[in-house]
């Protein structure tokens, strides 16, 4: 009886857990407009003010929102537009045009998109759209027709603004700003770009959950509260903040931690976060080195020594092979003296892993043994990787620390 009850309890809990995960994942993955704005209230107020003036007074404005990736530029503008559209007098008045520099890669496409979003093709009826020039003059004529008081303000939102600046002659930008500076249809041009910083976010550290299972939700929130006071968690977050101030990378971190929550392990712990952080800050190349064979490790060590001796000059296979031979003949007891073709094979495998890189394009005629290569691993990286390398022969490890250890 009791076991059955606990089982059903378990089931309920599992259900709750999956709901929690779903809610939080949604919050991390989508830029939900419900989430609060942190640290940009002043900018937000200013933006709203400008947009309102365009919408209500018909005053043309142009705004450039700059900030690094993940600092909430798009969220800011989405918030602002959403609030703006809730004002009734604005709602009926404003036309919006959203453009993205990654989608509208040249002015021609951008113009067509503007025409489409302004629903101007209805005016044209069945007129077949012709050349770029015709499009441009058509649109300019359309925008020129309006004046401050009578025509509907248009808000242009140019995402990835900097890419528009790469268009030929910057025709689109010139014309948009020209319109915004002359007595034509009122427009607000809002550019979003990541080329420069705006202001910075304070950390976002809260995992509140509105939830059906009340007791569970309370427990969860208590746990979150205690977590946020935990020293370790704070350390992890501080460390992460040191690396990157982007909201998105924080979301990635939290997502990783969240994925560790299971019915048997229902609440997030500090250890989860720490592990997630480790996962985030892992050196990917060192991981590759862990999976290499001893021969390949030996080759990498040989290359490291060559780099030390020749001061970062490029090397070729023959040099590496000689270095390896020296080691095997003088010192090694645990490493088998491989045939040259086998070593060559290992060498090519390293090249495929992009741990070494040819200096110039591989040509058919050049002999592969003499092609100049460079190592894409740092000394410290190699040493760290060797520390963790499972079952590393001692003589290899010694050789790695010093090329002269055999003397």
């Amino acid at each position, binding site marked *: 009886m009791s076991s059955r009850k606990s089982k059903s309890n378990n089931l309920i809990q599992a259900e709750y857990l999956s709901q929690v995960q779903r809610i939080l994942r949604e919050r991390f993955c989508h830029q939900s407009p419900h989430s609060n704005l942190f640290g940009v209230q002043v900018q937000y107020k200013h933006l709203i003010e400008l947009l309102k003036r365009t919408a209500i*007074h018909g005053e043309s404005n142009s705004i450039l929102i700059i900030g690094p990736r993940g600092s909430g530029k798009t969220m800011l503008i989405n918030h602002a537009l959403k609030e703006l559209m809730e004002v009734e007098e604005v709602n009926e008045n404003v036309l919006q045009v959203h453009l993205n520099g990654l989608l509208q890669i040249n002015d021609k496409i951008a113009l067509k998109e503007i025409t489409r979003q302004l629903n101007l093709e209805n005016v044209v009826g069945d007129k077949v759209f012709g050349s770029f020039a015709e499009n441009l003059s058509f649109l300019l004529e359309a925008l020129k027709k309006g004046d401050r008081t009578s025509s*509907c303000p248009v808000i242009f939102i140019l995402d990835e603004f900097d890419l528009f600046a790469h268009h030929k002659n910057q025709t689109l930008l010139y014309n948009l700003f020209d319109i915004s500076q002359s007595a034509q249809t009122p427009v607000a041009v809002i550019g979003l770009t990541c*080329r420069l910083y705006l202001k910075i976010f304070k950390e976002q550290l809260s995992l509140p959950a509105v939830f059906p299972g009340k007791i569970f939700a309370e427990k969860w929130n208590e746990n979150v509260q205690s977590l946020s006071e935990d020293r370790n968690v704070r350390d992890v977050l501080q460390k992460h903040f040191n690396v990157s*101030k982007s909201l998105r990378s924080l979301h990635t971190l939290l997502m990783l931690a969240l994925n560790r929550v299971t019915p048997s392990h229902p609440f997030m712990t500090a250890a989860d976060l720490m592990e997630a952080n480790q996962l985030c800050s892992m050196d990917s190349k060192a991981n590759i080195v862990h999976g290499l064979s001893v021969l390949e490790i030996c080759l990498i060590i040989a290359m490291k020594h060559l780099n030390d001796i020749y001061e970062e000059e490029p090397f070729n296979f023959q040099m590496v092979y000689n270095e390896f031979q020296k080691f095997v003949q003088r010192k090694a007891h645990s490493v088998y003296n491989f045939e040259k073709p086998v070593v060559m094979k290992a060498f090519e495998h390293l090249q495929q892993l992009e741990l070494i890189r040819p200096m110039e394009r591989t040509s058919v005629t050049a002999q592969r043994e003499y092609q100049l290569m460079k190592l*894409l691993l740092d000394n410290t990286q190699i040493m760290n990787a060797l520390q963790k390398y499972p079952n590393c022969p001692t003589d290899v490890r010694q050789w790695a620390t010093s090329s002269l250890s055999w003397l």
Partner: protein
Amino acid sequence: MAYRPTRLRTRQTYSWIGKPLDRKLHYQTCKEMSVKIEGRLPEIDLQVGQFVLIEGDDDENPYVAKLVELFEDDFEPYSKKRARVQWFIRFCEVPVCKQHLLGRKPDAQEIFWYDYPACNSNINAETIIGHVQVVALAPDEVIPMDLKNEKTFFVKLSWNEKKFKPLPPELFAQLDKLQESNPRCQKSMEAKTKSTESPSWTTAEHVVKRIESRHSTSKSRQTPSHPVTPRARKRLELSNLGFPRTHNTRISQQASWASLESPGRMKWKVAFSEITSPSKRSQPDGPQNSSAALKTPEKAGEIQQCWAKDDKKASPDGCMILRTRVPALKTTETSEERTFTPVRGGQKSLVVPSVILKPENIKKRETKEPVQDEATSTPRPRIRRKSSLLTLNRIRQQLRFLGNSKSDQEDEEFLPVAEISDSDSEEEEASTPPLPRRTPSSVSRNLRSSMKSSLQTPSKTPKKTPEPRTPRHATPRIRSRNLAAQEPANVLEEARLRLHVSAVPASLPCREQEFQDIYNFVESKLLDHTGGCMYISGVPGTGKTATVHEVIRCLQQASQANDVPPFQYIEVNGMKLTEPHQVYVQILQKLTGHRATAHHAAELLAKRFRTRGSSQETTVLLVDELDLLWTQKQDVMYNLFDWPTHKEARLVVLTIANTMDLPERIMMNRVSSRLGLTRMSFQPYTHSQLQQILVSRLKHLKAFEDDAIQLVARKVAALSGDARRCLDICRRATEICEFSCQKPDSPGLVTTAHLLEAVEEMFSSSYITAIKNSSVLEQSFLRAILAEFRRSGLEEATFQQVYTQHVALCRMEGLPYPTMSETMAVCSHLGSCRLLLVEPSRNDLLLRVRLNVSQDDVLYALKEE
């Protein structure tokens, strides 16, 4: 406005009511006309003397006019049913620059008697939409406000393109009388059926339609939503092809083929050229005209009798068929046509004004038309649909097969986009592109297509003077706002409005000298009827374009006051072109309304400016952003500067660019020498000038402290002298002031503190803020870069080198050991912010890194904390 059928949505049938009053050759007048709108009973009857609405370019506000005469004019190429009207003009149709002459606000339903004899009053009767009530009021009477009927207009004044005048008393009396004897508006169904002619006409129309549908199966599927317009358009084009368009060559040809035909026909032709020589349309307009009879030469009489049968069949729609077919009319065809035609009994013996059979008659008449007409025919630019192009090509090929190679060559060069809606008046323009010429024989053999093209051609726009009434075409516009824009509520908002760059100031302070120079230059060229070039340079925001616009505005006013000869003003902007050669297209389109490809437009323009016909007015061309018109060959600039040097061109070119030495720097010698020595350079504004500009904009508005204005003027003058920047800073300062002010109802003055803040915002380096706000790891990476640069003495380092430094730095500062991946992420992040210049990241460790900011800036930014 109430529901008003437009041609796009409904079909309307127009027919005369009652017998024609008097018939002259090619010309019969009528008292009444009935308009039958498909799907709507009862019909509308229109009588002479009534006020009518006429379809115009604006569906919401159709033209208002008084019917003076209804007549059938066989000379008119596309529609025989014509009407002569006296126009009324709405206030919104008065040119904007003259609207202020009224001196008061117009009432909603007020219209003006249009007293402008040059205005063409001969319109196509089928453009009449319905009737309307017009009430004449004495100038001091108040327009009644209880307007239940929207279709009532009030007329108080007359407008003659110069000024508003009260209505002359006799006119007033006449209008008043009309109003009392307001005729019945609508007639019941049975009343109208008494007319004998209409049934037969409608059948004829049916026949005609059937023929047409047989020929145009390929095209009838086009755009079901617009059943009429596209097809009609195409037919127009086709008929242009089918028609011989220039008569001087034709007359010689005519002799040869005329001799092949019967002598009777020959005689007939002679008769007609006599008849038509007094131009009908050159007569002054007015109701009395209708009684002026045209005499029928006896010679023509007998011929006409033998052709009478055919003429009868010339129902309203049939007119065009005859015209195109006649030059080589074959007996088999005529008989075939006759079978379709119901013969009207009793009228057979009448001498009916015959249909125009020969195009040259039209030409003759046209040449007598007043010059006014040519301007009316600004053809509507339209994009031709593919299918029509296809058919066109097919027809062309056929024609080419029939010989006549010379004209075909011309024809091919001619881009068929310029659609000709009023085909008759167009060719008088000197600029007309080489029009297709066809010998009559080819036309006759190509009967099917030309017939198809000519059937049922509705001419849609009434011909009028260009200024207030332009032909309808779909002009794109942004939809108008639902709620009115709010007016500024307080002083700061008012100031902001005035400080906006778009606000057009009443005067341009500090540019008086430049204004005078440009004005004198253009005026002298206008007075001398010569051409010339001028190059205006200056950094952005120094008022170049504004000054030129002001000059043109003043000159336009002067030309209206007849102080300078009239001129045509065209403006092109290099930035608004997709490609330098597009400038030709734009100029040609603004000059003549034609559209052509860039190459073709260049030829047409060259022709126009090099060989000039008579009585052309001067053209003033403003080319903004000239440097964008640079091409490898510099042919665009060359042409722009070469045209004015021709004596006949009468072209004044004003060019604007930013660089002072543009002619020397990028132009070849032959180009810059044509540009001439008339140069003007706009100096950046000094601080006192900027101050003056601000003060003039903020006249009578106490929003700024005096010191504040001086401060911003000095700040901007020290940097760039850009007036736009100056205005923007002031505008921003008003925002800051409003924002910082607690009481929203009474914001204080904008002080120097506010302005300083705005200046700070505008001119502060964003890089430094960026570095200050970057994360710890990013900052230490920047330090590592600096350290590496100092170590190597180079301004560039590979990622690996920087990484080593970075690891050392982190160790020193007690930061956790940065892994390679993390550091790479930091590096690429800085690269995407453009604080660093980095190579593509596939180079990995060997990636080269450079600073995009000066080292001092980085040091300064990092030290601050």
